[in-house]
């Protein structure tokens, strides 16, 4: 046996060694041609978590996710041609054989339909905004509209998951989790990634906790969902008979036990558990200060509208989002459901718009008047757009629109984006992008860039390869940077 081992060693002789060496050097050289930074010794950049790669423009993000895909054609992408050509069939040259959802692919006709709501231009950028968003219109000069967003998914769940995690299938970390991983928590008394849900009266789509998952990252980076009730965080008070010192002692002892378990099993989730107990303990003092709305002056209630005092509404979530962000929460994720207008656009769209219009604009102004807007990035938008043709039969007074991944509009404000900008353009039918397309990966790359992170360097090694929020694509869009 020993002999065989010896022989096996002999098999690797000088010739093999040199031969392999040649190949090795060759591959290394080829590698360095393909990946210029391969031997630049900058690997430590990847490891230096918690500090931005370069000076960030934005320190925090508030993402106002409009769940269900609000129609760009009734909000910010004004297409008079659709009004002129209402009822006519979508020209084949425009559709160009691109895929449709199962909900309309069987339609014999694709009757174009224009916005029921009138549009006007606002601000120095002359951005078009529909009449159902009067307050967002007023702050057009603060906003950067991207009219040329496009995605790969055509149905809600994959599109939503793509927008939030950079992959359609789920199990990847959400944007907030990536930022928590890359930059850490600013205020250690609150989760770095908070999630707030609200629901409009329009046709809705679900949200699932996989959208704020930590994926393969440590579970400390998971989004923490707040309750929509009067108490955003439940069970904050110690039970009767237990005071703060008792609680501290319990946690200290528990932490010792957990540490022993960690020594034995080495499961990193045990460490996470310890950290989460500590965070929960500190939240006992940080959260009441935060959720106390009685100290908000009247002018704030007027800015956001009276709904901001009704727990669980979008307006209340916007106000809470500002308070969380002001307190150093890295990423506040809102979801407002009810934007899926396959039918009854005329009835539902104004209701949905009313839910979010005042509070969204208020949030931007509120951050600005506190001197926080230039370090807070506010993002508003859905997971895809809606078709320029009517789903089902076009009636005289109502219509609906199907899913449209090829073009949609989102807006951003604050944190290093160019205010008063309209970026990108769609054709006169609002169907295809004709200028400056922004893919979801590009959007992610740009958001990370604004946060001071190089999207190619924010990585995590999992299952034998390195993953990024932008995975293997994405480029920063300089045109929207201030």
């Amino acid at each position, binding site marked *: 046996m020993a002999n065989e081992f010896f022989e096996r060693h002999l098999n690797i002789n000088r010739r093999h060694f040199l031969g392999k060496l040649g190949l090795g050097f060759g591959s290394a050289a080829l590698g360095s041609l393909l990946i210029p930074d391969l031997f*630049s010794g900058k690997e430590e*950049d990847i490891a*230096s978590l*918690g*500090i*931005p*790669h*370069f*000076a*960030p423009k934005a320190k925090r993000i508030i993402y106002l996710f409009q769940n269900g895909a609000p129609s760009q054609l009734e909000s910010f992408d004004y297409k008079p041609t659709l009004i002129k050509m209402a009822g006519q069939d979508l020209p084949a040259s425009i559709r160009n054989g691109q895929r449709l959802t199962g909900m309309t692919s069987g339609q014999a006709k694709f009757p174009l339909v224009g916005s029921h709501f009138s549009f006007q231009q606002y601000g120095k950028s002359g951005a078009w905004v529909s009449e159902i968003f009067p307050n967002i219109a007023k702050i057009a000069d603060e906003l950067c509209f991207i009219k040329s967003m496009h995605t790969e998914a055509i149905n809600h769940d994959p599109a939503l998951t793509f927008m939030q995690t950079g992959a359609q299938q789920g199990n990847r970390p959400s944007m907030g989790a990536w930022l928590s991983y890359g930059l850490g928590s*600013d*205020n*250690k*008394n609150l989760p770095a990634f908070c999630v707030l849900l609200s629901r409009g009266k329009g046709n809705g789509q679900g949200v699932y906790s996989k959208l704020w998952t930590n994926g393969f990252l440590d579970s400390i980076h998971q989004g923490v969902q707040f309750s929509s009730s009067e108490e955003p965080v439940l069970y904050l008070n110690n039970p009767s008979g237990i005071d703060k010192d008792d609680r501290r002692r319990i946690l200290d002892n528990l932490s010792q036990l957990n540490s022993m378990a960690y020594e034995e099993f080495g499961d990193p989730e045990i460490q996470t558990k310890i950290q989460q107990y500590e965070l929960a303990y*500190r939240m006992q*003092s*940080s959260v009441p*200060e935060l959720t106390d*709305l*009685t100290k908000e*002056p009247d*002018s704030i*209630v*007027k*800015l956001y*509208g*009276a*709904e901001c*005092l*009704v727990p669980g509404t979008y307006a209340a979530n916007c106000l809470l989002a500002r308070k969380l962000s*002001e*307190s*150093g929460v890295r990423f506040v994720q809102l979801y407002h459901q009810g934007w899926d207008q396959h039918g009854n656009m005329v009835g539902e769209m104004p209701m949905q718009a009313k839910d979010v219009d005042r509070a969204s604009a208020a949030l931007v*102004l509120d951050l*600005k*008047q*506190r*001197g926080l807007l230039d370090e807070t990035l506010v993002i508003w938008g859905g997971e895809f757009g809606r078709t320029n043709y009517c789903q089902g039969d076009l009636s005289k007074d109502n219509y609906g629109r199907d899913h449209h991944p090829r073009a949609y509009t989102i807006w951003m404000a604050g944190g290093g984006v160019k205010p008063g900008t309209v970026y990108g353009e769609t054709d006169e039918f609002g169907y295809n992008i004709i200028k400056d397309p922004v893919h979801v990966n590009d959007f992610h790359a740009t958001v990370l860039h604004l946060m*001071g992170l190089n999207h190619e360097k924010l990585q995590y090694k999992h299952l034998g390869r390195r993953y990024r929020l932008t995975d293997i694509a994405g480029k920063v869009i*300089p045109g929207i*940077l201030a």
Partner: protein
Amino acid sequence: MQLFQRVIKSAVFGFNILLIFLIVFQDRIVFPSWLQSFGRLHPLLLHLPIGTLVIALLVLLFRNEFKGEAFTRINMLVLSFAAITSVLSAIMGFALSKEGGYDESVLRYHLISGTAVSLLTWLLLIIDSQNQKLYRPLLLVSFVALIAAGHFGATITHGENFVLAPMMGKGEEQIVITDSTSLYHAAIEPVFREKCFSCHNEQKKKGNLLMTSVAAINKGGKHGVIWKAGDPKSSSIIERINLPDENDEHMPPVGKTPLTDKEKKLLYRWILAGADTKKAWTRFDAKDTLTLLANEFIQNGRNIDEPAYSFPFASKDKIKELNSPYRTVTQASIESPALAAEFFVSQAFKINSLEELKSVREQLVSLTLAGMPVGDTEGKMISEFTNLEKLDLNKTKITGAILNSLTGLKKLKSLALVGTEVDFKSLSQIATLPDLKEVFIWNAKIDKGQLAELESKFPSIRWNAGYPTTETLKLTPPLLVNDSLLIKEGQRIQLKHNLAGTIIRYTLDGTTPDSVTGLVYKEPISIDGFTKLKAIACRDEWLSSAVSEFTFFKSGRKPTSAELSTKADVKYKGEGINTLVDNKKSTFADFREPYWLGFRERPMEALFYFKDAKPIKKVTLGFAKSYYSYVVAPESVELWGGNDKSGLKLIERKVIPTPTQKEAGYCEDAVVFQLGEKSFNYYKVIARPVAKLPEFISKKKERGWVFVDEVIFN
């Protein structure tokens, strides 16, 4: 062949003598112009001796491959060619060097090593290649000389470290532009760097002009100083960049990239404005043509701006030590030593945690104390952080007094004082800080007139006093505090509105309250049976809210037993009879839950038994209405009673009129039977669904649904 060799050998001899002669007597010779052209061929010819000498080396290495005399002959041929090209190159190089504008020291080394190559190759040619003892070392020495000459030559033409530069990272210095960077460094010098530095640098110095520093430019070159401040027309640089391209005097010379029109205009304007090399770009008048032109260049460069700080990095351990759960200290980026400190959780704040930051006093550029119990006395401590650019004192306990102690923060750019007691006088004082760009004073003690005065007195500062809402908005309706619509014994109805100062008005009689009618809600409301409550919220400066309607039930006696005689629809069968007597009420929003029973094809018929026949005053059947779902009130409801299960008698039959108009949404309602003093052991309730829905609900005149959730005996 022999003749050729003879000619070459003598030519090499002659030229080398000439070379030595030229070098020795260079100061006394006047170069004819043809020699200048000859000299310019140097860069062409110099590559020939390099190649040839390499071949000589190869021939020597593989000399065994040559049979007989072949080696000697080939070697002689190669060496002849090497020697003649070497010496010619050297002479040309010498001639070229006389044009001037090269770094003297590098040129000297190049001249020496180049001449050495020429003389050594001549020597090689003379000695016999068979004389191996001498030939081999000599060839190696000439090769070394060749490498040296090549290196110095390349340094002259391409600059120092040309080859390694790409690997050493940034070959070019990145310009970092801050607000105090001079316009010259931010916009003018980058043009020079791109278009002029390649010839007017320390190594080349064409026309004896060095442009890499302001001092050097001021010295001027062969033709004197290149600009005259305020007078672009008599500045030679303006003249020469604007000459026709083919003119020999045109700069940059033919073959190099000329200046763009914008760059030319920029230079012209800048010289016209006084050619100030020190004034910060931000200090020029923003509307001036020069500023507008310069801004384009500056903005292009600013994408990479990372504010430059000259102070050192704080140690990682120091930063780590300063971080606690309530104090976060972070470095701006991997490449920046600047630190930002933030404080959280006001009850955990301690003054010495601010004091501890003194150990990073130099690095601290941003400080956030928002919401912390910080007062005017902390001003002195804050004033020691002299590098602060951003200070957030929102919602602290400070007054104007603190600002007086902050006037030493000369680098301050952004100051947030939201929700504090700062006053006009102290704001005017702090406004004189040179770099201050924005001040946030929303919700502070500043009135409109004072704001206008601040804005006119200090126009370079953005004074943000908030965005007051001018329209009158509608309030939200009052909220119900009780979590159930079923009011138990001893419980009362509680309403609330989260906006302090709001008045709630309500009615219990079905009328609609408004801002003047209805009862003012002062304390929780008691009820003794089924009650419809309508309430609105009113407040000064607000429009009254929409009406909120609630239907309340008063909990009653639980029957000893009960049973459903008919079955509920299979889809909405709740928990059977238990649903009707479980003492739980909910809204129709939960109609899929077990709180509700749905009937359509059959009437609802339920029997209730009480062991002891105590008097019952009221029997209430709770039902729902939702026209969109075809759920309407029952057509009729009957109450039967008796002490014997088989001998029940009809007590009362109530017919409910069919609805005549559409109602949106859903609501809960009830039928109430008043019983007087009679008491029974058995009660039976029958509710019949509408046989034909009115047309405005269903065009097909289908049967209606009846949804019931509770029968209450009070």
